[in-house]
């Protein structure tokens, strides 16, 4: 199959890759760029484990084609920490035991960060509906919701 050359920016770094026209952004990230932090839980946009942002918009990368990354700004879990300093969300997830197996964690962190950028002080209900597209089977969500609330308060300087 003919391949396409794509120039994009991932986590602030310029990236060039080739992909086939039917290749998803998730497959490109995982298989061509070794960014395996985004996970494939379903491949149909139902679980959110592959969440990334494209030009600031939260998407399931399994529903985006690699070719659509041309000239875009993509953020993945690998770009969330600043060097060895964890993002407040990442720290809160560890300190408040908001993960068990951890497979949904990258997607939930990316999704939560996208929410807090739009709405720094979400209600519990807003948080629960925003994260309704990210399945977690281990935690029952309780500690996830609490950890995001803690991080949001810290980020607001509250």
């Amino acid at each position: 199959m003919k391949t396409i050359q794509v120039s994009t920016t991932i986590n602030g770094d310029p990236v060039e890759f080739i992909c086939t026209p039917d290749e998803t952004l998730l497959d490109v990230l995982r298989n061509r760029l070794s960014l395996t932090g985004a996970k494939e839980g379903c491949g149909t946009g139902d679980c959110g484990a592959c969440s990334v942002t494209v030009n600031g918009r939260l998407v399931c990368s399994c529903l985006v084609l690699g070719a659509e990354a041309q000239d875009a700004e993509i953020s993945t879990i690998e770009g969330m920490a600043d060097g060895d300093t964890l993002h407040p969300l990442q720290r809160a997830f560890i300190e408040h035991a908001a993960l068990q197996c951890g497979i949904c964690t990258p997607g939930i962190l990316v999704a939560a960060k996208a929410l807090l950028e739009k709405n720094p002080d979400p209600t519990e209900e807003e948080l629960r509906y925003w994260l309704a597209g990210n399945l977690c089977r281990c935690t029952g969500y309780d500690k996830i919701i609490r950890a995001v609330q803690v991080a949001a308060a810290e980020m607001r300087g509250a």
Partner: protein
Amino acid sequence: MALDAYQKREFKQVGTRPNRPDGVDKVTGRAMYGADVTAPGMLHAKVLRSPHAHARIRSIDTSAAEALPGVKAVVTSADFGVPEDAFLLDVQDHCMAREKALYDGHAVAAVAATSIAAAKAALKLIKVDYEVLPHVTDLDEAMKPGAPVVQAGRAFENVPAGMSENVTHHCEFGHGDLEAGFAKADHVIERSFKTAATHQGYIEPNACLASVTADGKADLWVCTQGQFFYRTLCSAILGMEASQLRVTASEIGGGFGGKTMVYMEPVALALSRKAGRPVKLVLTRDEVFRATGPTVSSSMDIKIGMTKDGRITAAQARLRYSGGAFHCGTVDFGAQAAFAAYDLDAVRSLGWNVMTNRPKESAYRAPGAPLSIYAVESVVDELCQHFGLDPLEVRLKNAADKGTKSSYGPTFDQIGLKATLEAAKAHPHYAAPLGPNQGRGLSCGFWFNFGGNTCVSLSVNTDGTVGVTEGNPDIGGSRASISLMAAEELGIPYDKIRTIVADTSSLGYNDVTDGSRVTFAVGLATIKAARDAIKKMCSRAAKIWGIDEDAVEWVDGAAVPAGPNAGKFPPMTLAEIAAVSAETGGPICGHHEVNADGAGVSFGVHLCDIEVDPETGATKVLRYTVFQDAGKAVHPSYVEGQMQGGAVQGIGWALNEEYIYGADGKLQNPGFLDYRIPVASDLPMIDTVILEIPNPGHPYGVRGVGETGIVPPLAAIANAVSRAVGVRMTELPMSPPKLQKALAEKG
């Protein structure tokens, strides 16, 4: 008192909530799961699956697929032997259909190719000649005379004569005179219940990377709950010696029992052996639903008699479970667990396993128990309603306690059931007011818990730090708990310890991460391995001091002379002893190997408030509180996590989740859109109350906590819904259409 018997003690580190050692890897995307690795020269594998629920495989022609450029190997059942052992044959047949495809999605062939696209293209070129056979997916239908026979000749001798050939197994537990017991009752209720099969719903699809070399050595990287058991099964199926197959457990993206069984790993190994190259095989979500996991489906009849003051006089359960197209013993667990919470004079549970054209059942958190206990707790609730009795008081009145002869045989030692019931009774949740269309439900839950084969190595490093090597994949924070117990016993800080999960070539055999066994059994072995190392460190200090080693004891992380007669020496810390170990006899390590008994049964009680929308039939969970006995909560955050996660899985089972089969025998909903697990917006916070009634069988009193939490939600929700709508609900899930129908029939 035996060394491993419970010793009351104050804890310095156990019971605190330090950060988990794998936390940073998991929040930065660095943790390596099943599908996250590659190998040089790696091929990609795909599996061809039966589109029929039941079909004889007349022939398979793979020649066109093999000729496709990029295809390096194709395997079918012809590439495997026929194991003599019936269990192993079932495992292998489940991985790759031999004579018949037994369910929709059953693997019939697999391809390894240089790309996923080539592997997919090759699947389309494989010609399978099927003779489609009549199928049966409903277990009650499968029990009828004349039902299609899933597999002939599989019934055990204990199956009563005259039953369908699909009934493979029968069991019976209990004691006392049922007839006399029912005669003493003021009221007897007899009801039938059905529950749908569900899936563990782990978010990480099954994945592995297999590499077999020309000299017969092999490596398998796989997301599994038990690398040693996978080695046993894979090496037996592939005809390899265990020493030649090294299995490494990846980080695991959820298991809940579903990753205790091989599904495609032997196939990946067979492809790698044939192709001479590493092979990666990752299932799609559709394949995960169709060919891995599910629980049993069930059909149950419960009969319970009660006096008007709430004493249960007799109880009987007749349980029919289907574990899919193979023999399955899960109904035994259901029958044993059904009445475990009650102290009864007359009790009987009978069970039958029935084969249907569905995938082979796998364990799911307390396998078998949620169903039978759902049915029993529903009837107990209905009896409470009949007499106008408080459901908590009735449970307290009949509760099993220390010394109770359990319904399945053993006499209980110290158990936490009454304490959890009392805690629920005293909790503000139980007295909170309810609004219209709302209901409150409660249920007891039980799980046996397990110990099992366990092996731990603990090495004291020369810089004063410690490595713990254990053999059980960490599915819920167990590395943190193990490190905490090692730190407690050694008397050094938690962050001086690193616990890792070893591959099968690095440690002795460890049973699967199941039975809520890891914190209990691996914890026990870790404590004893630490004591072994402490003994050696005391001996080194004795050598340095020139005194008898019996005259040295270990206090707060240091060797000290034991009493004034031993001599006067300043304490030698673990770090000081480790630093000079080369001069005192070499490296210092502690080991422990055990087949652990004394796991200590686990009880819990759940309370929930729900509201049913009378128009849509949708149920909203408003408030939920879990009370559970943990023996001793080593890392309370992860104990709470187990309780919350189990509760929410049970809520999904009660309200949404089900395997739906069409008349064609095909699974209708193999995806997360149509098989709906609970999402964040479905739920309230899940409150937790941890009770600590020490387990006499563990040095720190620990009980496993992983499984009990999924048991009570089914009945707790069903009882709440039944009270809210005024109709006894007897089928799970209680999806909106079922509730609408119940409300319409009630009028």
